[in-house]
């Protein structure tokens, strides 16, 4: 073994001196450059991100400047799809409605999640993990199944209607429970609850309890110490929760198509139809790009708003 290695080395030394130099240089670069080492360590993730995220985005962006003609794309640069987006009122209107629905969903989710997270962080002393797992139990079933469950809850002969009917409050089933934007908000708020509870819980858990004691010692009542200490310190969790709920729900199309009815459709349904029934991929791509840009703008606005809010109460 030893002999073999030595002769091997000899042969490389004699015949392939330049390549050894390159190899040597590379090794030295690897040793000295921290950035290179970092990128190599990152490379599996980085490659996945480039192939799975950056490339598709680039494809989508390129596609949005083409034009669909029957079955083919006309591959010359054109702004026609963007012109259509601004010219026809439907896309802007639906996008605005999607943002309004998602905003309501985010608000409802965070408002409902905060007390739950607070309870686990401050009131539960033992077996916190069990409580956290219990909260995620409903989310072990498929997303689609949970949407269908709401369909059964809110339906014409659903749990709520038959319950109210048997109690004698109503004689005819309430039709307004399902197939409208409210049903979409209810369903989405439930479906995304876990994504709000966990980040809020983490930020509440991190709060130094002595700060709360200090607030009480200095004469603040329970409510005011919550407003002036707990709430500002848990804002990172609230912001994370809001973003985690808002961003994916804007583009959701399964929930609106199942419980939304004619008035509850969202931008995801339009995009899906462009890539399917309407067979206009470039316009679908342009709507996707516009919806991404709008969501980005909304988030920047939101972050700026919360930032100034935190500065004011701090």
């Amino acid at each position, binding site marked *: 073994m030893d002999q073999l290695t030595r002769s091997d080395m000899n042969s490389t030394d004699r015949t392939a001196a330049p390549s050894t130099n390159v190899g040597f240089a590379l090794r030295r670069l690897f040793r000295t450059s921290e950035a290179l080492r970092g990128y190599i360590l990152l490379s599996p993730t980085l490659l996945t991100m480039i192939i799975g995220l950056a490339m598709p985005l680039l494809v989508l962006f390129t596609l949005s400047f083409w034009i669909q003609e029957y079955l083919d794309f006309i591959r010359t640069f054109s702004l026609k799809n963007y012109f259509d987006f601004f010219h026809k009122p*439907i896309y802007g209107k639906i996008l605005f409605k999607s943002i309004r629905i998602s905003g309501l969903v985010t608000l409802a989710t965070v408002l409902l999640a905060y007390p739950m997270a607070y309870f686990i962080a401050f009131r539960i002393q033992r077996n916190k993990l069990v409580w956290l797992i219990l909260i995620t139990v409903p989310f072990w079933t498929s997303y689609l199944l949970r949407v269908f469950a709401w369909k059964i809850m809110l339906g*014409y002969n659903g749990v709520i209607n038959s319950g109210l009917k048997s109690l004698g409050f109503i004689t005819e*089933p309430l039709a307004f429970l399902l197939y409208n934007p409210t049903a979409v908000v209810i369903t989405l708020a439930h479906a995304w609850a876990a994504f709000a509870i966990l980040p809020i819980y983490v930020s509440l858990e991190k709060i130094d309890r002595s700060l709360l004691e200090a607030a009480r010692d200095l004469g603040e009542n329970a409510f005011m110490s919550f407003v002036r200490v707990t709430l500002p310190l848990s804002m990172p969790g609230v912001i994370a929760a809001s973003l985690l709920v808002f961003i994916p729900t804007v583009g959701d199309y399964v929930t609106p*198509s199942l419980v939304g009815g004619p*008035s509850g459709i969202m931008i995801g349904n339009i995009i899906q139809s462009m*890539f*399917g*029934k309407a067979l206009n991929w470039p316009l679908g791509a342009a709507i996707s790009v516009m919806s991404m840009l709008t969501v980005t703008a909304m988030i920047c606005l939101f972050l700026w708003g919360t930032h100034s809010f935190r500065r004011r109460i701090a």
Partner: protein
Amino acid sequence: MKKEDVVEQLATGKMNRRQFNQHLMALGATMAIVPMGSRQVFAASGDHPTVFTWEGWEVPELHQPYIAKHGESPNFAIFGDEEEAFAKMRAGFKVDLTQPCTYKVPIWRDAGILQPIDISRLSTWGDIIPSLKTIPGTVEGDKQYFFPTDWGLTSVLYRADLAPEYVGNETWGILWDPKYKGRLSMADSLIDGVMVAAIYIGAKDPFNMTDAEVEKTRASLKEQLPLMRYYWTSPADIEQALASGELVAASAWNSSYAALKKEGLDVRYTSPKEGAMTWVCGFCLMSDHDPAKLDKIYDYLDAYASVESGVYALTEYGYGHGNVKAFAQVEKDQPGLLNELGYSVNVDETLNAGIFQAPMGNEPALQAMFEEVKAGL
């Protein structure tokens, strides 16, 4: 080296690093090879064609002769609608046979994914209802791109006990009746939804409307929108809702009528005075089919078009069948059932009463119009 030896050596620490690595490598190589082996096994039993079809049309009862001959069913892939199927196949999904409806055949042919069917290899071709063989868009000269096997109606299905005034006075107008606001539904589709509105407003040729007719259709859809409970996407949506009384009337296919009738509900499904629509679905041979499987492909087509499959489709689903002999068989076995399902014993009579669904002129514009109406514009 025996298995016990390995374990013992490991436990006592006698195995050196090189030996351990050798074992690990052997294990890794074995693991990597295992799926290949089983893949070959699958291929051996799976040299059947792949059929891309609607849910419910892949049941063994609809191709028994194929199973009798080859021992098992072919491979199936299921689509929700033809647009989904089309998108998948254009993205590279390889299948041998698909089962679209007539109005999609021309666009699929234009996309270059279809190949003519060799009708001389079909033993059932002579039994197929003649008027189904020549539907425009499915034949080009002597090239037959479509093998018609299923047909049925798109008509109005309503609860006669909840809307008794429409009994004997059937009309699409029930779907525009403000009296039943919030208890009506129509298919979320161009062909089964928007075309209904086109027929309702009296368009001369609903599938090639003039601009004025399109605008009239839009107006009638807008008028209808507030009356809709929802636009349905799956027959199950309306079947449950009609059974519970949530809906009074909906546009529907035969299968929904057959299902509700079986539950003993007082539902009606007859020809509205403006005319019901007749749809025809069947098989297309894909241009990238596996030539080695051609015999089995034609065996499957014959099995699907057999009389026994037709009897099952008629009695279980209430759908019409391409094989004319299936109707005679059902009439012989269960007299009166055909009439109950909405078919005449003379099949052509039923076919001629309806409006044949055809490819729609300017489909993208109609789709855009429908989206706008649904968005409340």
